[in-house]
Structures are given as structure tokens and as C-alpha cells.
């Protein structure tokens, strides 16, 4: 796939079999965040978007429910309320300045998309329609509010398509099915500066070095560290892993969101928009159990809470089904009309994959690993941080791979599609401003050397371990020990597992020795990133001895603001293969930015 699809404005040169390109800005990842950045960057600087998937295959397209913005199109609303909900929803671990920006710029972000062509559902007056979503309330928690702008139940699909369409319009350069494997850093006055990225062109198997002044990471999440997940097979956290291996910190990695309503056993998501439209969770006896846990907003409580309640219902024997291992999402009272027009896709998912027709029967659901709140730390300008406050010049991150942190310890539904648009746009704009006044940082001697060595070691390995076996064990163990509920013991168990898997990974061998389209090789590399990230998640989780948002410690069931009202910063500081994770992972804290809202108890 020669994928300088769109008028490749840079000629590449080939040295020792490695192709060299030069662009002002390189964007890694063509999901929502990457393409939103490209739309800003493309017209202002020579830009390339590198993606391991065709842009429209990115997982932004799977998002269903909506994108929040206080447009007040259907009822009174304000961005301040949205800010408050975001902060409360994130269990106060949210940087409030960032949340304020998110909520304020949300309105423009939605209008931008509409003006770019996104076909939102409409109100009778022809304005963008809005629906309810978990945790979004009027006047600081009084009642659910209609804030989520949506396009049926394929909002993410429409966002991804609209952004891609506008990239086509702008003639953005895409390098599709190029897999970025390394960030190139050059020492400038003793400080490592980013100077480019190294990628493998999957179609040809050849290496490409992209030298650039600014680099934006927008590589999405890493839900594949879990078995049951709403995430795509390709969400293996490569971008986050690359940053990690460079010794740059990762923030709040212990916070992973489990979405309450994944199709039981499969993890395929049924949007919260279903509950926004009035669907109800019931246990085996048909009880609407959320009434007990969140009397005010019931089924529309934030995801962390609903997921925990569901797991608890099942744990206490009130699960439905022959194994009593799931609860039921009851949409039957919504009627065929609402299901077919407002929730057509999820209706079809239930029919196709479980053979259950939501019009007549409740759908079996269980929490599914969904969203990484943590990731590459950035400031509100989307600049990547080297420590608590020093930026890495020219390096940006946006989207799920980044941690701004607007989601704190638990993201509200619809805030991620918002995040990718608001901070994707900021990353693009700031990168353009940055590249105007700087020169290219020179590349080191043979910048692809590290990647070549990595690829060769896997390709030439004569070991006996199989990628799929290791990956399955990792995912099973993560589900078992680091899912909705965690304890020191369960986390210790999985730490052990990860260490042994890492050792076995050294011995991993692949069968496909070919050059072109070697997805066997790709999966092996991805597994390496998954192992790295799982270790950081678990290590960070073990360190946080409290329960907050998406991180629920059974042995420390209370939130502990005194000791833990701060972000975790994890650094790779030693030989990643040392047996004790503490030997190579160093944890530090970063204060939470508070502006207006003091932490309160989180009741709904």
C-alpha cells in the first residue's frame, strides 16, 4: 500500500534501505484526536499523519452515544455545570483548569463539527438534538440534563467520517498502515529533544524515518490489556508504550474505566445512551437495583459506580442467567420505534451477537474494560510533560493516549469524544505555532537502529513461546485481578504473572518470516507494549491505597483525600526486566489543580 495516498508533498530519500521524510509536523494516529489536529495543522504547516490503520478504521468510529456540550438546545444548561459534573464525575482528581477549558470549548467543538458537515440528530426546530447521559446534571447534581449531542447511536462513526472527509478536503498527507515503533530523541545540550519517529510500512515491511519539528501522539487507548473489553484488537497502547520506553512519565495509569453495559461475555459495547433514553438495569429478580445505590439519578449514575453495583449484585448472588453471572439491560419498554431510530446499531449488535432482541427481551450485560483515564501527561496546551511541569518542546499528545487530566479518576460518558476534539484541535494549533520559529532537530546517527534491532530480534527468534498464549494469559489475569475490584493481594498476583510473562516474552517466536504485511510480527511487538503498560497500571494501582473513581480497592474502600488527592506519575527508571517492578518503576505525585470546586462526598 504505497500510502502517500494524498499528494505526497515530501520526496523521501532512501539510505541503507531506510526511507527518510521531512515534515514540519508529524501526527501519530488517525483517530478522532489525530485527524482533528491534522485539520488545524495541515493548512498551517507541512503535515503528515501516520497511522497503523486506515483512518476510518480507528476506534473513534466505534463510539456510540454522544459528545457533551452545554448548547442548551433543549433545556437550560451551562458550561459551568458541565465543568462541575466533569470534576465530580472524575471524583475530584480532575485538573479543574483543564475541565473548565473542556466544558467551555465544547460548544465550539460541536459547532465546528456541525459546520464541517457532521449530521447530528435534530430537534423539531432544526437545531442539534441532545440526550441524557450518565453523570451529566443540571445545576450541580439536581437532575439529569440533556447535554449529549448525538447522531443516532453512531456519533463516533460520524465524527470519524466527518474528520476524515475534511482531511480529504484539505489534502492532508496520510501514511496509512505505517506502524510507528519509536520516537527519535536527539541530545541537545544534554537534554533529549524529539527529532522524529520511526515507522514500519506494513505493506512493504520497510522502515521509514520521519524527521519533524513537532510530533503529536494521538494513538488512542490500550484496552487490550484486558480480556473483556469494548476496545478494538488494535488498541494496544503502542503510543503510550513508546513514550514510556523513552523514560517519559505516565500519569494516573491505575484509573481504567469499566463500562457497565458490555454485551455479557463479549464486551461489545451498548451505549450509555440506551440508559439515557430510559433503559433500566435489572438483576435476576427484575429489581431496578440502581435505585438502591443512587436514589437521585439511578441508572444514570457515573460508570464507575454503576459497574461496581453490577459486579456487586452478581457477587451477592443476584445475577441473572444460568450461571448468575450477568445483569440485564431492559429496553423493552422503550418500544421498537425508539430502538430502531435512536439506538439502531446497538439493537442490531444484541440481535447479531447474542441473538437477543432488545425490543422484546432484556439484554445480558456486564462491565467491560473501556477507557484509559491515564496516559501521557500533558498541560492544557497538549504539550507533553517531562515531569510535573517541564514540557518537552515540540512533543504533543491528545486523545485517549493523553492525560490532561480532564477525566480524573473516572471519565463521564461523552466527554472523550469531546476531549479528542478540544485537545486535538489545541495540539494541532499549538504545533503549528511552535514550528514557525524552530529548526529541525538533527537526527542521530542511524535513527532506525533501535527499531531494526527490535524487529530482527523478534523475527529471528528461535524461542518457543507463542504470542497468543502469552497475551491470553495476560488478559485473563488482568480481568481476574485488576478489574472493577482490586486488592493488594490480587494486584500482587498479577504483578507476578506479568513479570513471568515478560521473561517468557523474550523467548517469543513468530511463524511468519516474510517481509510484507507481517501481522504476526506486528502482534508480537504489540504484545510487548501491552506487557509494559499492564505492569505500569498494576504497579500504580497497588500504590494507591484508596478507592476513587475507576480504581476500587476492596481493601481500602474509602476515598482518602488526605493522602491521595494527587496524580500518580510513573517513570521507567531501570532495567525493565528486573524481577521486582519497584526496581525499574519509580512513582511520584503531581498535585491536582483546583480552582473553584472543593472535593465533596460523591453522592448521586
Amino acid at each position, binding site marked *: 500500500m504505497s500510502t502517500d*495516498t*494524498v*499528494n505526497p508533498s515530501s520526496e523521501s530519500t532512501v539510505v541503507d534501505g531506510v526511507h527518510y521524510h521531512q515534515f514540519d509536523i508529524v501526527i501519530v494516529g488517525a483517530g478522532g484526536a489525530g485527524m482533528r489536529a491534522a485539520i488545524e495543522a495541515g493548512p498551517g504547516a507541512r503535515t503528515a499523519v501516520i497511522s497503523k490503520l486506515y483512518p476510518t478504521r480507528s476506534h473513534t468510529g466505534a463510539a456510540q452515544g454522544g459528545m457533551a456540550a452545554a448548547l442548551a438546545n433543549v433545556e437550560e444548561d451551562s458550561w459551568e455545570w458541565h465543568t462541575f459534573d466533569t470534576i465530580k464525575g472524575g471524583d475530584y482528581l480532575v485538573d479543574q483548569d483543564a475541565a473548565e477549558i473542556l466544558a467551555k470549548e465544547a460548544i465550539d467543538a460541536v459547532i465546528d463539527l456541525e459546520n464541517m458537515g457532521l449530521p447530528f440528530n435534530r430537534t423539531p426546530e432544526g437545531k442539534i438534538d441532545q440526550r441524557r447521559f450518565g453523570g451529566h446534571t443540571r445545576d450541580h447534581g439536581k437532575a439529569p440534563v440533556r447535554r449529549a449531542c448525538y447522531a443516532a447511536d453512531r456519533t463516533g462513526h460520524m465524527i470519524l467520517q466527518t474528520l476524515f472527509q475534511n482531511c*480529504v478536503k484539505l*489534502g492532508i498527507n496520510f501514511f496509512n498502515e505505517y506502524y510507528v515503533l519509536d520516537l527519535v530523541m536527539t541530545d541537545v545540550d544534554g537534554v533529549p529533544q524529539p527529532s522524529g519517529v520511526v515507522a514500519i510500512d506494513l505493506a512493504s515491511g520497510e522502515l521509514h524515518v520521519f524527521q519533524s519539528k513537532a510530533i503529536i501522539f494521538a494513538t488512542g487507548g490500550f484496552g487490550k490489556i484486558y480480556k473483556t473489553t469494548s476496545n478494538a484488537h488494535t488498541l494496544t497502547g503502542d503510543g503510550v508504550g513508546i513514550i514510556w520506553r523513552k523514560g517519559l512519565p505516565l500519569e494516573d495509569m491505575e484509573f481504567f474505566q469499566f463500562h457497565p453495559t458490555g454485551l455479557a461475555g463479549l464486551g461489545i459495547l451498548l451505549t450509555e445512551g440506551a440508559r439515557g433514553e430510559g433503559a433500566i438495569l435489572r438483576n435476576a429478580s427484575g429489581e431496578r437495583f440502581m435505585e438502591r445505590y443512587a436514589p437521585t439519578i439511578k441508572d444514570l449514575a457515573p460508570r464507575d459506580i454503576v459497574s461496581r453495583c453490577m459486579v456487586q449484585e452478581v457477587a451477592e448472588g443476584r445475577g441473572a442467567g444460568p450461571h448468575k453471572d450477568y445483569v440485564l439491560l431492559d429496553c423493552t419498554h422503550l418500544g421498537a420505534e425508539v430502538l430502531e431510530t435512536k439506538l439502531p446499531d446497538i439493537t442490531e449488535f444484541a440481535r447479531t451477537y447474542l441473538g437477543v432482541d432488545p425490543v422484546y427481551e432484556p439484554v445480558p450485560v456486564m462491565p467491560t474494560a473501556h477507557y484509559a483515564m491515564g496516559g501521557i501527561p500533558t498541560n492544557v496546551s497538549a504539550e507533553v510533560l517531562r515531569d510535573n511541569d517541564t514540557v518537552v518542546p515540540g512533543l504533543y499528545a491528545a486523545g485517549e493516549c493523553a492525560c490532561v487530566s480532564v477525566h480524573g479518576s473516572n471519565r463521564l460518558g461523552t466527554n472523550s469524544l469531546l476531549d479528542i476534539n478540544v485537545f486535538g484541535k489545541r495540539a494541532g494549533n499549538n504545533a503549528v505555532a511552535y514550528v514557525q520559529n524552530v529548526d529541525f532537530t538533527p537526527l542521530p546517527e542511524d535513527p532506525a537502529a533501535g527499531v531494526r534491532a527490535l524487529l530482527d530480534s523478534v523475527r529471528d527468534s528461535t524461542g518457543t513461546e507463542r504470542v497468543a498464549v502469552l497475551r491470553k494469559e495476560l488478559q485473563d489475569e488482568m480481568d481476574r485481578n485488576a478489574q472493577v475490584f482490586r486488592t493488594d493481594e490480587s494486584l500482587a498476583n498479577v504483578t507476578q504473572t506479568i513479570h513471568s510473562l515478560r521473561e517468557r516474552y523474550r523467548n517469543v517466536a513468530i511463524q511468519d518470516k516474510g517481509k510484507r504485511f507481517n501481522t504476526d510480527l506486528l502482534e508480537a511487538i504489540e504484545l510487548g507494549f501491552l506487557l509494559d503498560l499492564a505492569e505500569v497500571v498494576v504497579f500504580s494501582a497497588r500504590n494507591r491505597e484508596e478507592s476513587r473513581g475507576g480504581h476500587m480497592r476492596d481493601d481500602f474502600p474509602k476515598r482518602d483525600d488526605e493522602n491521595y488527592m494527587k496524580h500518580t506519575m510513573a517513570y521507567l527508571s531501570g532495567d525493565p526486566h528486573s524481577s521486582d517492578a519497584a526496581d525499574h518503576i519509580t512513582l511520584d505525585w503531581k498535585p491536582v489543580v483546583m480552582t473553584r470546586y472543593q472535593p465533596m462526598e460523591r453522592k448521586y
Partner: protein
Amino acid sequence: MSQQTAGTLTTETKRSSRPGGTLYRGREGMWSWVLHRVTGVAIFFFLLVHVLDTALVRVSPEAYNAVIGTYQTPIMGLGETALVAAIVYHAFNGIRIILIDFWSNGVKYQKLMFWIVIGLWVITMLGFAPRHLMNVFGH
């Protein structure tokens, strides 16, 4: 944006790497089109000949009758039946295509209409074939 237009993509060089594989298992729509195309071509070639033989009326009655006489042999009689079958199918399915193109519900009922075409074709042929074959073999 690509400088290539979709209309000028050169695929020739890659031909060899575009092997066919199994036969595509299309449904009514595809098979109806295959039949339409085959019958159309068959009728076209028949028509070429038919105009020529009819033109013999300009040469002389003897010449015309000599050639047209062959139409009355049993073999040609069967061939003519096949030809009529082809024309009838092509004509009815042509109407189906026109309905698909111009009638707003045509797309929805295209499969049903295909079976109607087949039904009408059978009925027409039941009306035509015995009569015609009787004429052919009746002497």
C-alpha cells in the same frame, strides 16, 4: 488529493495478482443481469442474420424462400423457440430494470419482480412453445 482520477487508474500491471477465486454467489439481481446480458447478446447476433436474410426479399422471391425455408426445419424450429425464450425473458426483465430505475418502489420489490418476470416468461412460453412447435413439427 490524488492526482489520479478514478477513471484512469492503471490496474493493468497488477492484473496477474488479481486472480478470480470462486464464483461469486450473487442473488436474484446478479443472475437476472447475467441472463439479461447473455440474452441481449444472443438476440443481437440473431438480429444481424435476420436482417440479412430478410434483405433477400430484395434479391428475388426464390432466394428468399430458399433461405427462409430453413427456418421451417425442426432444428431451426427449436432454435427459434430458444430465441423467442431469450427475447421474452430479455423484454420482461428489461421492463423490470426500467421499473427499478424509474419507480420509487422498484428497488424494494426487485427480487419479487424477478420472480414475476420468470413467472410471466413461463406463462408466455407455455402459450408460445406448443403452438409454435406444433407448426414446426406438425407437417
